[in-house]
């Protein structure tokens, strides 16, 4: 394994009664693109705020590039880029003013690190005289990323960067991330979208403040313990209910226009299921065996592990 960039050991943070981050440990290698997947309230933002020295941990330790988040926080602030989930640049300053401002307080200039942000900044450069508050969602996000990169950070923390951004911009954004990764920057990114997990080197699934699993997207899929059938029929609402009542069923959930049926081993036979559904009055039932994708895996992980 390559050199380590981020080390988190037995990290815990409480807010009153709630345990936001519960005894988490993991390591991120240098130059890795590490994803955190989890529903709202899983503790992703808290974890990021601790790693970026905005929040103190209650227990456990974190090191970023060898610096402790509590004792060496000043050093971390020089080498980290942080893009919070909420757009938090000055809405009443222009694109250019925002960039220059953050460049100056990091003790650098836009020109000095222009190469790093060139690809991203060029897309918003035509609007450099526009106030940040007047930019579209995708452009705001590009500006925020440029500001987070302006001081050439070694580690980049992106908290739900693609939430509320259209599908095309999301794809573009992940392309930008892979270019940054190629430039040697360690990237930690959190997202509620499971499909984005496949774009990471490794993903951690978080739920209720705990780490459910950490592995590469390929491993996640390989370790899927069940078999899957995709079922299509006209009336999806009643279909889900009737599938759940079928014997040997492990789990059933809607997946786009179809229902995914998960079962162990050879518990369910596609032919007899079709007969069963037709008897129940469903027309044009289509059943196809499919391989699991990353979302199926996370659905399963979230189902099986107790909170």
């Amino acid at each position, binding site marked *: 394994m390559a050199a380590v960039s981020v080390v988190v050991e037995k990290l815990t943070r409480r807010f009153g009664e709630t345990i936001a981050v519960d005894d988490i440990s993991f390591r991120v290698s240098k130059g890795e693109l590490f994803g955190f997947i989890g529903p709202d309230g899983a503790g992703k933002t808290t974890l990021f705020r601790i790693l970026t020295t905005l929040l103190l941990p209650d227990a456990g330790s974190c090191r970023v590039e060898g610096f402790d988040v509590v004792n060496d926080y000043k050093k971390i602030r020089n080498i980290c880029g942080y893009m919070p989930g909420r757009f938090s640049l000055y809405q009443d300053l222009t694109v250019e003013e925002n960039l220059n401002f953050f460049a100056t*307080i990091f003790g650098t200039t836009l020109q000095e690190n222009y190469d790093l942000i060139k690809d991203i900044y060029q897309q918003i450069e035509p609007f450099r005289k526009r106030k940040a508050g007047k930019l579209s969602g995708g452009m705001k996000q590009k500006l925020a990323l440029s500001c987070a990169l302006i001081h050439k950070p070694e580690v980049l923390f992106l908290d739900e960067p693609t939430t509320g951004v259209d599908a095309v911009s999301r794809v573009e954004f992940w392309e930008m991330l892979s270019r940054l990764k190629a430039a040697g920057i360690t990237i930690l990114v959190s997202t509620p979208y499971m499909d984005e997990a496949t774009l990471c080197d490794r993903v951690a699934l978080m739920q209720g403040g705990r780490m459910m699993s950490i592995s590469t997207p390929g491993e996640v899929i390989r370790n899927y313990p069940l078999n899957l059938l995709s079922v299509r029929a006209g009336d999806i609402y009643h279909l889900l209910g009737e599938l759940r009542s079928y014997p040997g069923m492990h789990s059933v959930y809607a997946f786009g226009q179809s229902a995914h049926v998960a079962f162990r081993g050879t518990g369910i036979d596609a032919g007899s299921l079709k007969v069963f559904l037709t008897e129940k009055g469903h027309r044009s039932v289509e059943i196809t065996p499919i391989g699991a994708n990353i979302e199926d895996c996370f659905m399963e992980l979230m189902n099986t592990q107790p909170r």
Partner: protein
Amino acid sequence: MKTIFYIIQKEFLQVFRNKSMLPIIFVVPIVQLIILVNAATFEMKHIRISVVDLDLSSTSRKLVSKFGGSPFYQVRQTTFSYKAAEDEMKKGQVDMILQVPAGFEKKLICEGQAKVQFVINAINGQTAGLTNAYSTMILLDYNREVVMENTTPAMMAGVKNILTEYSYWYNPKLNYKTYMVPGILVLLVTIIGLLLSGMNIVREKEIGTIEQINVTPIKKIQFIAGKLIPFWIIAMFELAFGLSVGKLLFNIPMEGNLGLIFMSASVYLFVILSFGLLVSTITNTQQQSMLVSFFFMVVFILMSGLFTSIESMPQWAQNLDRLNPVMYFIRIMRMVLLKGSSFADISQHFWSLCIYAVLINSLAIRRYRKVS
């Protein structure tokens, strides 16, 4: 140093880009000065009186006309029924009832003394006190005339007369405006300093930009200085602007050294801005910050001696007032502008402000945290 400069530059950009800021800086002082100075006056101009003259003699008429002729009084009602006069007072139509009893003239001439009655509406104690004082003066004046008329020069010679002459120092014409303008200027810079600075920092919390700032290596002291200096400059400018308006519109006296005013103002603003910073560390939204600042401002201003004299407050309140920065600065302003006091005269207030500044600023800086 370059960082501080850049933050200041950014603040000014934002302040002047905010469309409501320019009117606040330029229009508010003029409007406040014009309205407050003319409205918040304690001069009694139109004391409305109701006259109940039951004597109707030439002596009583002379007394009544003495009131009627004074610019301070306005005879609203003349009646023979005390009850009718009292009804008017109940309705709030008159401020004072002057009752001359029947047989007033006769008594005065035969017995050498007679009584008249003032009934004063004392809902506002201060006005009532002034009304009473004015009325007594008129009565004394009248008394003297009566004595003169009824005594021969020979008799006069034997009477030792002590005449009191008044002269009012530092404000010879008792012009209320010259007294109010310096105080209201203090009010103005206080509002600018306290509200704007507190709200500005909280605003960064509200829109989340403080997070972005906090992850940068910027030092606490740089951030705070960058935040406070712009408002310090704006408030100082505001004071200069207000003084010019006061001079041009109200022709307020400037007896003392203006340098002393600005020197004290620079320390005073440091106190007020730090106070705003302190408020911003304990609040999370602009609304909260407004309310907290407003609460302190009202207490500070009411106890500042702007409208009521501090000497007439109870002792505990006077002791408590030592914690009121507004009080010190209003005193300094009035002393320097009206009396022409030198530094030695105001030094006690000045040093109090300095101590205050150091204490509250270190408290605010300690409270301000980049990490939660």
